[in-house]
């Protein structure tokens, strides 16, 4: 014989609080609504940002500054990550290929993995931490110190002045950093293969050329551009919505990094499903 307590999750019988089906459905609905609201807010924010693109006079002079901060200053960390990724990847490939697979496939694996996946994703995650947190903290601080209110009072559009240059910088400079990371990653894998493995330079190049396609580079660069868009948008939206002083700024920075990382992985899967799958290149 079954009763309600064995069928429904019981929260606290002592306090006589029983989770009823209506309450469970309410929870699901609330979570769904929150998610959809978040997506709606992001969509509205994105729309406002695109509308603000028309105000070139406001964001134009600021863009190169942000490009330098977000892109050029992020080059060392991107290339550093790619350097070691290439080395580790070549060693890992040679370890996996022992005996069964010709060693020149190390070149194939390093090229494919670096250009299509690791350079965009690892660099994106690193820049999500660096750039996303930076934007969220900067804009959050401006929000809690009412600088943004002051800008609005002075007649500036906060989106044109604060968001557009950052988003454009992210969209343009993420692929640049990732492109450099691709070159450095493959080069480091090449050097590691020659120096640490019994693999000649010609064999590595043969492996790279074996299945190389221009699509590999295009795919990685477009993907990294979308990562840049999402990281800067999330950083901006979290920063502009910050409240509650320094604690609110810290929370905004943290959530910006977390959401950016999740968005990068979701976008990675999105591109794989929509573009990689079924593409004959």
């Amino acid at each position, binding site marked *: 014989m079954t009763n309600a307590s064995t069928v429904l999750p019981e929260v606290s019988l002592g306090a006589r609080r029983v989770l009823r089906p209506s309450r469970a459905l309410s929870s699901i609905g609330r979570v769904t609504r929150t998610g959809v609201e978040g997506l709606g807010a992001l969509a509205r924010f994105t729309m406002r940002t695109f509308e603000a693109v028309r105000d070139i006079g406001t964001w134009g002079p600021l863009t190169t*500054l942000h490009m*330098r901060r977000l892109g*050029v200053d992020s*080059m060392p960390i991107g290339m550093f990550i790619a350097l070691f990724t290439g080395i580790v990847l070549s060693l890992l490939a040679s370890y996996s290929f022992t005996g069964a697979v*010709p060693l020149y496939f190390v070149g194939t694996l390093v090229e494919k993995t670096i250009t299509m996946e690791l350079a965009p994703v690892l660099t994106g995650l690193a820049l999500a931490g660096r750039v996303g947190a930076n934007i969220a903290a900067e804009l959050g601080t401006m929000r809690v110190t009412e600088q943004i209110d002051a800008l609005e009072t002075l007649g500036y559009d906060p989106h044109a002045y604060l968001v557009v240059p950052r988003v454009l910088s992210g969209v343009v400079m993420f692929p*640049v950093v990732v*492109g450099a990371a691709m070159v450095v990653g493959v080069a480091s894998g090449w050097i590691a293969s020659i120096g640490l493995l019994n693999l000649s330079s010609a064999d590595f190049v043969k492996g790279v050329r074996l299945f*190389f396609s*221009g699509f590999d580079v295009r795919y990685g660069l477009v993907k990294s551009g979308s990562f840049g868009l999402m990281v800067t948008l999330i950083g901006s939206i979290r920063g502009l919505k910050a409240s509650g002083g320094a604690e609110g700024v810290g929370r905004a920075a943290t959530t910006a990094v977390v959401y950016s990382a999740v968005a990068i992985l979701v976008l990675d899967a999105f591109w794989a499903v929509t573009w990689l799958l079924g593409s004959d290149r």
Partner: protein
Amino acid sequence: MKRSNDFLVGAIVLAVILTLTGATLWVKQTDIGERRSKVVARFRDVGNARVGNAVVIRGVRAGTIEAIELARGGWVHVRMNLDRSMQLPSSPVVLLNESSLFGEWQATITPRSALPHDETVQAQIGESTGGGDVLPGATLPDIARLTAVAGQIAGDVANVAGRVEVAFDERAARELRGSIRNFAELSTTLSHTVRTHAGDLDTLSRGLQSAVRSLNQTAASAAQIASRVDSSSSAGEIHQIVDDMSHAAAELRRTSAQVRAMSEQLSATQGRLDTFLTNGDSVLVKLNSGQGSLGLLLNDPSLYRNGDSLLTQLRGLVTEVRANPKKFVSVRIF
């Protein structure tokens, strides 16, 4: 500060774009400035060949597949770019085949004379020949097809092995062992026999050789005779021989008629002889049966005995006459 930002960002962006583009072109071995020669081959099916796969001449990488496109008549055209220094073999054909077990394909340009002895390949090449400047091409089966066939063969072998296992029990093994032993003994005997008769075979061989020599000599003689016949024919002697032969044939016909007449006379004589023998036979029968005087004379022993005693008496009489003639003869004159 702002100008330095612009410069730095521009320089970095430009450097990354150039580096990435250069690296991509280098890896793709892009033919900048058309420094390579183009070759097009046509196939019914290109298997898993892809743009960028290697083109190989006599095992040496000579270029890459530049494009693969569908063409009219159900053909697939494969455009390849080759190093200008590379020379195509005479009567070239293109084979698409796997270069490794890992899905790697390549196009091999080879002379038609070096094609593998495979009916399918030959048929594909024959079908794709005649496309003008387009080289004929054939696609070799990939590893998946080969392994499928190998799997089928393995299944058949397993079936056969299973049947052998069923049929080949311990008794069969014993019998087989015995058969092998018998076969070994037979082999030993055979080798012994061969050793024994090796001399005979030599002799036979020598005889055969001499027979062949004789046959050669005979053939030479026949050839000489033939040549003589030739020469005789040319000198008119054959006509003479033919005339003589016809003359001889006429003589023979005459002789044959005489022989036929003689044969008829002989058969008449034989009839008379038969009659004579029949008569003689009846006389002899009568004699044997003691009929008639002669029969009685031949068959009556008393007559013989009387005759014999008469002769004895005659001999005594003669003796007495010789001894005393006067007793029996008296001569008186007057």
